[in-house]
């Protein structure tokens, strides 16, 4: 082939690269490894992830749930995972159809009118929602509850640091664990949006209807963040509470924890804001013979057409993970999504009740919870959790001191359908033995 194109050696392929910037040496990277060797290297690394083998009550934005076998099986069909983003609809109808189903399911669960084809994850979806609210309202302030996932807030701050958007924080009520009503006077006629998470970072379910009314009273939007998508099966939908934009992390829908990613962000809003939405949208279209198909649509919002005036710099969506979530939602179906949500609420309620009975331990927040709750310990939560992990092989939750310096004795416990009664009882037993 080199001869055909008139060359004598592979080196001549790179004639247009000036000699003095060519590498002219071998990269300092491993020798090629055989499959057996790569598996050996990876197994050894995976082995060091001790936490992956322990009973765990960690949540806080990433959750352990059961994923039906069909989910991972179907996403490994090469027609799905080795396909490109669906620019050529005639040969990507499979992808476009599941995106349309994903958008529909996201609307049904959030109670919203329209949803996009997905975002990178919940945190970036929230940052995009900030920018969208700024575009829609032409106002430059966002008021956010302190009980939104701290890493989400950090991401939003990064995204908006050069966009003239002011971010103001609302404190939480120390009794209920919910957004502090009195602090909502920070909402004013400059506010683009009020942002709350429900269930919030402490696991407390917010009164979304009340918050929507407060936001709307000053002409601001209500952005609702959901990090635990399983809660949609039981909690009143943000749409039913009159939210304007809903963003959610979809990892709970059949997606492995995988040390934080890849996950999938859901992004839904009221119909009137659709042309201000970021991200891809699939819609129905017909061919000349009247056959129904699907295409990417409303692309005039996007970067490849609008360039610097686009609604976002996002290029594609989270295709394969959106597919996993779609298969999960459809396999669990209407009744499965309800039952799994119910089991989560029941397991957490049981765990909370048992832990509260241990001497010295209490539940500081009174608001209703879904599958996570804060426990106040008689001493440093960090110490307790370290001891628990070392002595009993249980990861008992997340010490809140990671994010909130004021609460050294508090930790966040999450119980899901994967935590058996035996595991919960063992946790309770272990906590009660703490000295």
């Amino acid at each position, binding site marked *: 082939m080199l001869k055909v194109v008139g060359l004598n050696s592979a080196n001549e392929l790179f004639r247009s690269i000036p000699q003095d910037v060519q590498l002219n040496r071998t990269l300092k*990277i491993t020798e090629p490894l055989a499959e057996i060797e790569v598996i050996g290297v990876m197994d050894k690394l995976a082995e060091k992830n*001790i936490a992956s083998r322990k009973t765990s009550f960690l949540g806080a934005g990433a959750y352990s749930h059961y994923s039906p076998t069909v989910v991972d099986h179907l996403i490994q069909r090469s027609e799905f995972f080795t396909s490109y983003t669906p620019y050529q609809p*005639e040969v990507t109808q499979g992808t476009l159809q599941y995106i349309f189903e994903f958008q529909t399911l996201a609307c049904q*669960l959030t109670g919203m009118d329209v949803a996009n084809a997905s975002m990178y994850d919940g945190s970036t979806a929230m940052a995009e929602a900030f920018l969208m609210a700024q575009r829609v309202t032409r106002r430059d302030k966002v008021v956010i509850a302190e009980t939104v996932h701290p890493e989400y807030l950090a*991401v939003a701050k990064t995204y908006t640091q050069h966009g003239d958007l002011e971010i103001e924080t609302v404190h939480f009520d120390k009794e209920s664990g919910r957004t502090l009503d009195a602090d909502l006077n920070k909402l004013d006629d400059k506010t683009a949006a009020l942002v709350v998470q429900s269930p919030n970072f402490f696991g407390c379910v917010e009164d979304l209807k009340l918050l929507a009314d407060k936001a709307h009273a000053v002409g601001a939007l209500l952005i609702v963040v959901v990090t635990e998508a399983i809660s949609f099966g039981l909690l009143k939908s943000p749409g039913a509470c009159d939210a304007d934009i809903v963003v959610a992390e979809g990892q709970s829908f059949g997606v492995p924890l995988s040390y934080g990613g890849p996950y999938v962000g859901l992004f839904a809003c009221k119909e009137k804001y659709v042309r201000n939405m970021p991200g891809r949208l699939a819609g129905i*279209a017909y061919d000349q013979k009247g*056959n129904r198909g699907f295409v990417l649509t409303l692309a005039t919002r996007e970067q490849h057409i609008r360039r610097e005036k686009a609604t976002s710099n996002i290029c*594609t969506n989270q295709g394969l993970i959106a597919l996993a979530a779609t298969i999960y939602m459809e396999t669990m179906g209407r009744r499965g999504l309800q039952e799994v949500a119910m089991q989560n609420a029941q397991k957490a*309620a049981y765990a909370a009740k048992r832990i509260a009975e241990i001497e010295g331990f209490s539940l500081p927040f009174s608001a209703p919870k879904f599958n996570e709750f804060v426990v106040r310990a008689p001493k440093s939560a960090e110490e307790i959790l370290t001891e628990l992990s070392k002595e009993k092989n249980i990861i008992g939750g997340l010490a809140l001191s990671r994010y909130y310096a004021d609460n050294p004795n508090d930790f966040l416990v999450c119980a899901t359908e994967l935590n058996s009664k035996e595991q919960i009882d063992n946790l309770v037993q272990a906590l009660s033995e703490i000295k």
Partner: protein
Amino acid sequence: MSITKVTSHPTQNEELIFDRSQTGRVGYRLPKLDVEETNLDEILPAELRRDDDLEGVPEVSEVDVIRHFTRISTWNYSIDLGMYPLGSCTMKYNSRLNEKVARIAGFANLHPLAPESEAQGALELIYNLQEDLAEITGLPGVSLQPAAGAHGEMTGVMLIRAFLDKRDGVKSKERRVMLVPDSAHGTNPASAHLAGFTVKTIRSTAEGLTDMEHLKTLCGEGGIAGLMLTNPNTVGLFETNIQQICDEIHNAGGLVYMDGANMNALVGVARPGDFGVDVIHLNLHKTFSTPHGGGGPGCGPCCCTAELEPFLPTPRIVKNGENYKLDFHRPESIGRVKAFFGNFGMMVRALAYIQTHGAEGLREATEAAVLNARYVGHHLTETYDKPYESDSMHEVVFSHKKQSRKGVHTLDIAKRLIDYGFHPMTIYFPLIVEGAMLIEPTESVGRADLDAFIDAMKSIAEEAIETPDLVIGAPHTTRIGRLDEATAARKPVLRWKPEGEATAKSA
């Protein structure tokens, strides 16, 4: 000609899942609740609970789900089926080994907030991949946090912004111009905008390279924050003046960001850090073969000079003796760009790709990718208008000029390729080539397949003369024909709704 495409065959007419739904049907089973039940009202008062009974959410069996997705999957083209010559997208083979290792329980079941001491393997893996990418790019600071190419771009330009703000203090606000060539990806100006920069466009020369005179003029106008450059550029040419370009920008007080979309032409051959580039993003889903997945997930690491390293997103993964830890104390950092640590599953796959290839294999892949594009360019240059004479790197661009005289345009040629069993090339990009057809074969195609592709392209060119309607009406072999995208955008239907309810339309 009469070709019936949609038949009554069930596998070709799989409906939406919502149309398959049957009340009472289930496809899951959970264990019985094993804890004593609490009265639901005690857990959650009724006013906080859903009252719509999830109406409309499908009720289907497991086999319904399997058939549904298996059927619709057959309507997709995929790399495993054949050549996927999308320029700028690097559709190379996705090794099954990479899929296997990403699913090892010790990775898949690891919670991102697990104690650092109990997640050492994951941190070590991220660290090792960072080291390899630093060696490949010649840029020592690496963050794997960005989730995609555009996300890595945003991170990169924000690093530039943070650097300038620190270096110039308040005077930094006089430096807000980001130069972007007219051949750039649309994400470049969109990302620059997010970092608060205004975009000025640099012209390309008739030879397809950055116009040095125009670059100098723009630099002379002042206010230069930096340049966003793809190299090889989007017409598939290496910017031979790359060192002078970087010097111009540096002399004007700005920094150079390189869009790494086309790194598949350079790995093992040349390193951006050695050209004078300050920051680059990579696409693990292009160059390092993590699957495109029908449009994500990706991973868009950001690699930079030691000077820019303090500004990288937090937390950083650092090595401390034999241990790895997360460093959150980075006062100059631009902040987080994503919750947790990025798309870890993609990092596992990319590292497996690098280890399978080794240093020599990576260079060989680059050579094969460039040779394949050169071969296609060589064989089609008589048939299609090739706007730039210079040697192409890993991708080659043509225009429809010769065919459009007969009324056959790029879109038609692309659609007709489908009938020949190939995925279309990238079309109408870059914007500077009228009716552009950007072809990137990648290294994952052998000579026989390249020849078949070349034959198909030649055959289509003949058809464009002899039977143009055949090309204009393509594709003829797919389930559906060309879709009316204009109507779809004018009257958008973006979700399913039960019969009787109006489907959602936009405001």
